[in-house]
């Protein structure tokens, strides 16, 4: 069995699965249960400054979208940072860390954008024995209205400034949590790096309205007839998170900065994808809020089995494995030609590929009287839509054409060499091929 031991910016944990700063990590009771279930680490629910804690709404704070059989696909929330007194959280953190010294415990922090506020809280956190801090520059609701959370995360200069304060006033590693509610994630990531961050974690939740109540004409979740945007998370946001992680991982200015991957991690496979795209570990929230802490057992066994099958003995060997293959569109090989192929033995004749191709794509699938569906190579551009809408896994595949064969669609011979848009004759700013 592969060793899942994780070392993230010097913070050790028995596996790379941490619980993200969120309701599951709001108090000692939950965190102890999480550790008993096998979680490698937790990022404690975000702490605020000393004094009266924030208050939450007293009505629904979550909204959701569902797939078949009410499978939860996306969750949004309007919950704020911890609404328990700072000293209570600190006391509990200390107690838990004392009892679970092998697990990672990170303190998420959000205080006003003033040097004194950060300087004041850091020693208290350090005193708990926490392994590191995560700066919550991400929450898009509530706290942002008060100039914190994503209001800071959307201004690279603030990120850099606060990160620098933290590095100045604590010896603990500093992880900067990034908001996806920006135009280009590289600006905040680079700012974190300039400020001296040890790592970034992403993504925080996405501004969202999950649904509109068509009887009361208000967004959900609704509080006394009104709703507000909340932070969206869960399986639905994973593709957005993967892209942002990959962008940071392959950007020369940030490529060497460790990343804690967050966003819709639900299974070991999701985790493995984040790791391959450059995350050093992952953080999970919605999946445990849906299924409970026990899912970590599947994540551990699944990742371990996968790594064994690939001959990998440590998590490091998987991290960044896919990063070299993430590129810009203009680097894609335009000489590569594939055609869809339908496995007639696997086909159940539902005709969805036909409807999709005929109505919305290239009219490249033929349907016979007896409902046999075949690809018309003369029309097929290998767009993959048929594969995506087919309900049978592996029934339709994209088969590359051999070099030297003639593409019946274009009449051109498939060229074995690589050529991309930068050298393409149709590109007005093409440079001549060497």
């Amino acid at each position, binding site marked *: 069995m592969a060793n899942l031991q994780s070392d993230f910016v010097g913070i050790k944990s028995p596996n790379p699965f941490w619980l993200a700063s969120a309701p599951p990590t709001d108090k000692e009771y939950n965190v102890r249960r999480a550790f008993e279930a096998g979680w490698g680490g937790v990022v404690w629910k975000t702490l605020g400054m000393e004094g009266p804690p924030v208050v939450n709404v007293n009505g629904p704070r979550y909204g959701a979208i569902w797939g*078949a*059989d*009410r499978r939860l696909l996306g969750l949004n929330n309007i919950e704020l940072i911890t609404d328990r007194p700072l000293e209570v959280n600190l006391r509990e953190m200390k107690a838990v860390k004392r009892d679970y010294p092998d697990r990672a415990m990170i303190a998420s922090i959000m205080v006003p954008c003033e040097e004194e506020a950060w300087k004041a809280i850091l020693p208290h956190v350090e005193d708990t024995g926490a392994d590191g801090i995560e700066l919550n520059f991400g929450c898009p609701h509530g706290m942002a209205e008060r100039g914190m959370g994503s209001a800071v995360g959307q201004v690279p200069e603030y990120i850099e400034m606060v990160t620098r304060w933290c590095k100045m006033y604590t010896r603990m590693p500093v992880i900067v949590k990034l908001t996806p509610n920006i135009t280009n994630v590289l600006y905040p990531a680079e700012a974190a790096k300039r400020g001296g961050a040890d790592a970034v974690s992403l993504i925080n939740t996405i501004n969202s309205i999950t649904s509109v109540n068509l009887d009361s004409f208000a967004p959900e979740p609704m509080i006394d007839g009104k709703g507000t945007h909340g932070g969206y998370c869960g399986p639905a946001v994973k593709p957005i998170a993967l892209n942002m992680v990959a962008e940071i991982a392959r950007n020369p200015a940030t490529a060497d900065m460790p990343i804690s991957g967050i966003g819709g991690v639900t299974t070991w496979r999701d985790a493995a994808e984040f790791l391959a795209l450059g995350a050093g570990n992952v953080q999970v929230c919605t999946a445990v809020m849906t299924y409970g802490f026990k899912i970590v057992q599947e994540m551990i066994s699944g990742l371990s089995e996968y790594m064994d099958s690939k001959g990998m003995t440590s998590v490091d060997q998987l991290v960044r494995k896919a990063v070299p293959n993430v590129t810009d569109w203009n680097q894609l090989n335009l000489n590569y030609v594939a055609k869809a192929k339908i496995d007639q033995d696997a086909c*159940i*004749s*539902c*005709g*969805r590929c*036909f*409807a999709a191709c005929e109505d919305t794509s290239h009219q490249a699938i033929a*349907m016979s009287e007896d*409902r046999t569906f075949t690809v018309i190579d003369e029309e097929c551009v290998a767009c993959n839509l048929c594969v995506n809408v087919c*309900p*049978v896994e592996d029934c339709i595949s994209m088969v590359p054409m051999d070099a030297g064969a003639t593409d019946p669609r274009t009449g051109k011979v498939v060229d074995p060499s690589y050529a991309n848009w930068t050298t393409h004759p149709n590109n007005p700013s093409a440079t001549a091929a060497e």
Partner: protein
Amino acid sequence: MADNEFTPGIKAGRLEHSAYAAQFSDLHPPLDDHEALVAADRCYFCHDAPCITACPTDIDIPLFIRQIATGTPDAAAKTILSQNIMGGMCARVCPTEQLCEQACVREMAEGKPVLIGQLQRYATDHLQQQGIHPFTRAGATGKTVAVVGAGPAGLSCAHRLAMLGHDVVVYDARPKPGGLNEFGIAAYKTPNGYAQEEVDWLLQIGGIRIETGKALGKGSGAGLTLDQLKADHDAVFVGVGLGGVNALGAMGEEKDGVSDAVDFISTLRQSTDLTALPIGRDVVVIGGGMTAIDAAVQAKLLGALNVTLVYRRGRDRMNASPFEQDLAASKGVRIVNHAVPVAVHGNGAVREIEFEYVDGTMKGTGEMLRLAADQVFKAIGQTLQGDGLPDLDGRKIAVTGAGRTSVEGVWAGGDCASGGDDLTVTAVAEGRDAAMDIHSALMG
């Protein structure tokens, strides 16, 4: 001591009185909201879906299932009912495992089709339980049409004609409308008076008058003739079903205790107190179709100790679907194949019935089987009855196109007409299509 399942003879009240309701409750309890959503989510929304092709009434099944999945079951019901006005009954009695659900691509993929029949019932129940009738009549055409037979074919025809603006008179020999839905289908398939409920709901369209106690033919006292109907109306639709029953041709058939399965089913369906309905201890049903199964299963449900269904050919040749055969077996009915009745024994009343085993060519083998029997039900096919009918094709009224008969101005559909399976859903389709053809003919 009260009678029980061991008491010989034909006796009522073999079961505890409290047991009857459960015995005859819904075969497939209705889906609740969540079950319906889960079932609907399994539909792939196939292109030019095979289930539609397999449905004799061409219901747009993927569309109505999507309408259920998106929380609009009443819209789903309208999709169903616009093609099949008796979609509620068909959802209960259609052999879906041989029609839409057999064609479902998930049947091919997993052996587990989408529950089309139960979803259809979910949608139609949802609408009908609110008392909503979603169709309205077109402007009056001033034409009148006679429909003979208030079964699925006749009512379907009448509804469509009424919708198109014609006035319709429906004649039926029985004291109430519904045909086989009311008199000929096992009780557990349509419990709680659904057949009459559906008729009442259907008639909300307006423009349809029902006249019971009227049949084609001179003998009935209230006899109708095609000539008179033609004279009184602008068109005639004949949907009289198959009123006669085939005879066994076995010695001793006239003995007490030997009767037609259709009469047993009809009596059972009209019974208001099943505890008072007598049934034999040893019941033998002869036949291999749906009527035979319905009789056998209900005999068992009434408390018969031994119920044997005997059919002259193999299981694969039985008209009852494998699902129905399995249902019978699960209720404790024994099915004997390749045996034909040769004699009914007993002094006045049947005591035993004797069969000879036959080979695949129906040739006697000389091997005999005697079954104890205090009640025998014959279910070996029904025949067309009536005088002065249009030309026949074999034993049914010959039709071409959408139910046109040899007589100008007379259409026919349902079990009495040639072509198509003898199914409720087929009758509904034929009635509807004849109505459209009548409309075209009348409106030129």
